[in-house]
Structures are given as C-alpha cells and as structure tokens.
C-alpha cells in the first residue's frame, strides 16, 4: 500500500516536471483519453510529428494555433476519423489506432471508440434530407438501437436542451447557421458521449450567431462534460480552458493550465495570441 503510494507520487512529480501544464490537474485521476506518439502523414509529408496529450475527465482542453498547424488532424485522430500513421489513442484504458511498429497489443474497434466520443464540425454536417428532430432520432435509433418512438422522444429532449424544440420539424436548410450548429451539438449529445470534440464550431458562422453557439457550449461545459475544443475564439478559450494547447507546425509548441493566457512566456505563443485577440 505504502509502496504503491510512493510510486504514484514519484510518477506524479515526474509527470508535472515533464509537462508543466498538468501540474494544476488532480493527479489521482487517470486520463479519459490519451494520445501517445501520434504521427500522421498525408502522402509523403508528415503533418503531425508525435503528439502526446492527456485529457482528464471533466476537463476542458482548448487547442489553438495557426492555420495548417495540425489542430484538426489532432482532434480527428481522437475518434480515428483520421487514422494516424503511427501511435495510439487510449480511451478509458483501451488502446485504439495503429500503435507502434513491432509492439503488438490488442486493439479496440474504431466504432466502439466513436460511440463514446461526440464530434461537432465546423460545417455542421447535419443530414440535409432529415428534419432537425430526425437528424437526432436517426442517430439515436441507429447507434443505441432504441425504438424509433423512443429515439424521437430523446431527440425532442435534446432539442429542448439547446432551445430549438420549436424548430423540430425544420430541415437544416430552413435553419440559421447558429441553429444548425446547435442541432449538431444536440445530435452528438443525444448519444451520451463521454467526450465531446469541437472543431472550430463557430468559424463558419456570421459574427452575430457565434454567441448563441458559445452559450450552448458553455452551458454543457458547466455540467462537467469533458470537452476538447479547437477554436480561434480566444475569449471563450480563456474562459473555459483548463488545459490550453498551442500547436505549431505539427507539434504541441506550448501548453499550460487555466491561467495559460496570462502567464505564458513563450515568444511565439504570445505573438500568436496577440495576433488573434
């Protein structure tokens, strides 16, 4: 018992020394999802050069950085929408992805990982041939196997949570961008994901619609939902982020905790934050 605690403490110390960002995160928790040595190449060019990242339950990770730095690719490798060339995604102790050459371990199925991870896209990606409520109900019915009636009931609840119940029968083309994105969030949440991924959820929106989507995200962040958000909304990032990741040229160039935006010292990071704010 005692020996065990010592080990843990040693590990904890090591951990926070290696990656200072985690110093503020309670160390008795094990990560919900970890990326280990994620490399990704498109053709001959490598765009991620070995990414390591831990996301703890209930935490809000924000990822920012210049265009083309690999933010989306990191996010998309978390649910294996982008299959890494090398490396592992460890979700609740189960290892997914290609792993490392020579190290053969049992691997989880992609679809099982995806059923526990929700994702919201920049372009919403609602199904245009289905009404708002059917977008959600189809997902619930197809993924959880609930009956169509039960799925519709669940969908109605989710729409209510994002304040769009009145619009249930509208098709995506009949909704504003902000409303579409809120339906997309509701659709992802209807499957009770343990982790939510957001890839620039407000970048495709007119400025006056950004607020309503951020409000919904804030609301779910406050309920303790584990979130990873790629965003250029620095105000929002500062507000909800308790792990902040700055990406540059396929590396995690800098990272920190909740106070990252005020305390970071890296010149490149400061420059970038300055240019966006």
């Amino acid at each position, binding site marked *: 018992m005692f020996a065990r605690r010592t080990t843990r403490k040693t590990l904890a110390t090591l951990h926070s020394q290696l990656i200072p960002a985690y110093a503020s995160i309670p160390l008795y928790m094990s990560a919900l999802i970890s990326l280990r040595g994620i490399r990704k190449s498109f053709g001959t060019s490598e765009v991620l050069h070995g990414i390591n990242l831990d996301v703890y339950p209930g935490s809000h990770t924000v990822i920012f950085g210049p265009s083309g730095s690999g933010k989306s690719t990191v996010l998309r490798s978390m*649910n294996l*929408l982008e299959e890494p060339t090398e490396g592992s995604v460890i979700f609740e102790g189960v290892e997914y992805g290609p792993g490392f050459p020579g190290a053969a371990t049992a691997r989880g199925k992609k*679809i*099982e990982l*995806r*059923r*526990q*991870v*929700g*994702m919201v*896209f920049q*372009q919403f*990606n*609602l*199904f*245009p*041939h*289905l*009404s708002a*409520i059917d977008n959600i109900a*189809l*997902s619930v019915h*197809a*993924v959880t196997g609930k009956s169509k*009636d039960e799925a*519709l*009931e669940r969908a*109605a*609840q989710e729409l*209510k949570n994002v304040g769009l*119940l*009145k619009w*249930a*029968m*509208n*098709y995506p*083309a*009949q909704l504003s961008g902000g409303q579409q994105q809120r339906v997309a969030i509701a*659709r*992802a949440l209807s*499957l009770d994901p343990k982790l939510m991924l957001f890839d620039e959820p407000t970048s495709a929106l007119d400025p006056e619609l950004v607020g309503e989507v951020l409000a919904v995200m804030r609301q779910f962040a406050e309920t303790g939902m584990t979130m990873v958000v790629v965003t250029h909304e620095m105000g929002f990032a500062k507000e909800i982020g308790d792990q902040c990741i700055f990406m540059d040229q396929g590396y995690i160039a800098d990272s920190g905790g909740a106070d990252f935006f005020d305390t970071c010292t890296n010149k490149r990071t400061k420059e970038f934050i300055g240019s966006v704010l």
Partner: protein
Amino acid sequence: MEDTPRLNFMWHLVWDFRAELLRGLLTAFEVAITALILSLFVGLLFALMKMSRFAIWRGIASTYINIFRGIPALVSVVWVYFGWSLLFGYNFTVYQAGVIALTLLYSSFFAEIFRSALEAVHKGQREAGQALGMSRLRIFRSVVMPQALKIAIPNIGSMYIGMIKDTSTFTVIGLAELVFVMQSINAEYFQPFVLFTAAAGLYVAAAFLVDFVFRIVEGGFSYPKVGRVKRFLTRRKRAQIQRLVDAN
C-alpha cells in the same frame, strides 16, 4: 399532272386499332419497367464495385460498363435471344430476352449515374455518420443513399425514356411492342406515314408521362419535403412530433 397520286391518309386506322396499339405500348412499358428495376440493382452493384478499394473489383466493373455501354440494343437482344440458345441450348421467351438485353445495357449507364451521384454527396456526411458511431451499412442506407438518389432521379427518368424507345428494336425477335404492332397493321393497309406518325406521337406521349411520374418521385426525395403526396404520407409522423413538441 393528272398522274399526281392522291394522298389518301387513313387516319381512322389509328382509332380502329387503338386497343392493339395501346397493348403494344403497354408491352413496351412493361419490358422497360422490369428492366429498369433490375438494372437499378445491377447498376448500383457495379457502381459500388467501381468505387471499391480493391483494384480487381474496379477492373471488373469498368470492363462491364465499357462493354455494355457500347453495344446497341438491337445487337444485344439478337445476341441474347438467338446467341444464347445456340451456345447454351436455352431459349428465352421474347419478353425475357428483351428484359435481359435492356438490363445488360442500361445497368452500365446506371452504374455511372450512381457512381457520380454517390461521389457528389459531401464527404462531411459520411464523416458525420462515422463520428456518431454508425455502421457502414447504416451510413450508406440512411445518410448517403437518400441524398444520392435525389441527385440520380432525373437521370434515371431520362434513361427510362430511352429504355422504352429501345424496346422498338425488339421487333426483330418478335416482341409485340408498339412498332411490331404498327408493322403488322401496315402490312395489311400499307399506310406507313399514318402509322409511324402515330407511333411517334405515342412515344412522345409516353415520354411526357414518364417525365411527369418522375417529377412526383423526385418531389418525394427532395427536402424540405414538397408536394401534397409527401405531406399526406408524412402526416402521422408530423402529428407525433407535434405532440412531443407540445408535451415538452
């Protein structure tokens, strides 16, 4: 000048033989619709093969498409009807031979139509399905296919009109379609101008009818739903959702 033959158009023939002519047209419709249903399935299969990750499947599909896209209907039906019985000793009925010939030809067109329609569905749609954890079959069935069908339907309609017209060549194997009926009436009365004008009129009328029907079908696949038919068909679902909205 006295020798100028007096044109004697026996237009009444069209009315007199209306039952036979309509039956001929109906036969054309029937052969074409049976072939349509079959070639939609075969075409979809080849479209999927052509989009396969495996080169062998793609190769087989391309070969099939390129061969049958190039064969005229007349050649195809003669080959199926006479060639098959020569080679394999099995005789198809004229109806079967017509359906098979059309299916072989048009499935290759449908393969191309489906492939381009499936590729036209935005890739974010598949990704959304994957991210939600849907199975591949579910994504295909409930997400991609409905959107692809909507894109493909106008083209399927024009192909169907082509299929009806191509049945006219099946006269050579003795299928009692419209042109076959015309020719037998012509043999008796020798009124080619009248009879073939009537045939042209009937084919055009058929094309208008097909166009009309496909427009309705297209309406059913469009979104937001348009048309009374669709509203009528979805009224129970809408009432159910309305109850949910009111209850919450």
